[in-house]
């Protein structure tokens, strides 16, 4: 597999939030606005890249039997670092993401990539994979946050363009589920076209 493929894999073909359906809890909870989605996504990306790198470095030293606890400790370390950094530098973001920053530890994406990719591949590949997956996740959260903010508050990135309230239900819990469901459905439409395009390229 070439380097570019590893990097772009997480964007569409294996987008963690929309295709693999991992990390659903933060995807639903923090996407009340596009900025929150972006912040959460970037925090997760940082944890993914760092933990992938370290786990891949240590992959020959970690005994197979205790690998899951070892992975969890490594991941938890980086999550604590991110948590403290966000609290220190962007307290507003820490306020709105709240409990979901420490919960990156149990985000299935991070442990999933550690187990499925970083424990078997070289350091550089693992970093690329973490970066791709993280950015794919960020993209998904950003898109969902964008739509929820647009429909729920009538605003784009915090700038209101209508008077009064939007369709409030979209910023509340039910709207999260609805928007997520429809975004995945939209994603289901995409790959079909993609594969046809690649077929065409092949036949040409």
């Amino acid at each position, binding site marked *: 597999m070439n380097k570019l493929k590893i990097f772009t894999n997480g964007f569409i073909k294996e987008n963690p939030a929309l295709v693999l359906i991992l990390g659903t809890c933060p995807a639903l909870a923090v996407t009340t606005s596009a900025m929150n989605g972006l912040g959460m996504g970037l925090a997760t990306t940082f944890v993914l890249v760092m933990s992938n790198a370290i786990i891949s470095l240590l992959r020959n030293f970690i005994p197979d039997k205790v690998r899951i*606890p070892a992975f969890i400790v490594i991941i*938890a370390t980086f999550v604590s670092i991110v948590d403290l950094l966000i609290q220190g530098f962007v307290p507003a973001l820490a306020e709105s993401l709240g409990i979901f920053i*420490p919960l990156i530890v149990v985000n299935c994406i991070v442990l999933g990539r550690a187990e499925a990719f970083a424990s078997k591949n070289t350091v550089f590949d693992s970093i690329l994979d973490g970066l791709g997956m993280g950015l794919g996740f960020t993209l998904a959260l950003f898109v969902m946050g964008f739509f929820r903010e647009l429909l729920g508050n009538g605003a784009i990135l915090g700038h209101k363009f209508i008077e009064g309230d939007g369709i409030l239900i979209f910023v509340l819990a039910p709207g*999260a589920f609805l928007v*997520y*469901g*429809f975004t995945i459905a939209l994603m289901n439409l995409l790959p079909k076209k993609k594969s046809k395009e690649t077929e065409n390229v092949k036949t040409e």
Partner: protein
Amino acid sequence: MILSCVLVNNIILAQFLGICSFLGVSNKVSTSLGMGMAVIFVMALSTLVTSLLQKYLLVPFNLTFLQTIVFILVIATLVQMVEIILKKISPPLYQALGIFLPLISTNCAILGIAILVTQKPDFSLLDSTLYAIFTAIGYTVAIVIFAGLREQLSLVKVPKKLDGVPIALIISGILAMAFMGFANLV
């Protein structure tokens, strides 16, 4: 507190914790009930242990920045221990809950509640444990209702692009709306 935890602030439909298992094991009413029971059991125990640790170890020694690491390790170990003890003491219970236990250590609801109760300063140990139990009951209620809906859903035809996860999410959205109706109860 009961009404608030079980219905109004339902952990799945209003707080978005434990969605992975919510979508994963909610195909049948019986399995979801088993999962719910296991969650009640583990959540009560883990919240008790983690709040003890928080109160007597982390806070007095100024180690709260280690909270995430300590809690996740405690929960993972606890789940393992519960599994081993149940196997020995009560084989029928182990039979019923056994396969769900390993799944629980990665259930974000457990860690989520453990951290949430530490953020409520006026909670005593008893309060925390009760809070965990009621929340877990709310989880069970939601997952069982949802499993019932999904069983019905498997009988009808769904547009192809919406089949599977998307329709499940849309249904949970509608279910969440229904639960919002309880908002004025407390």
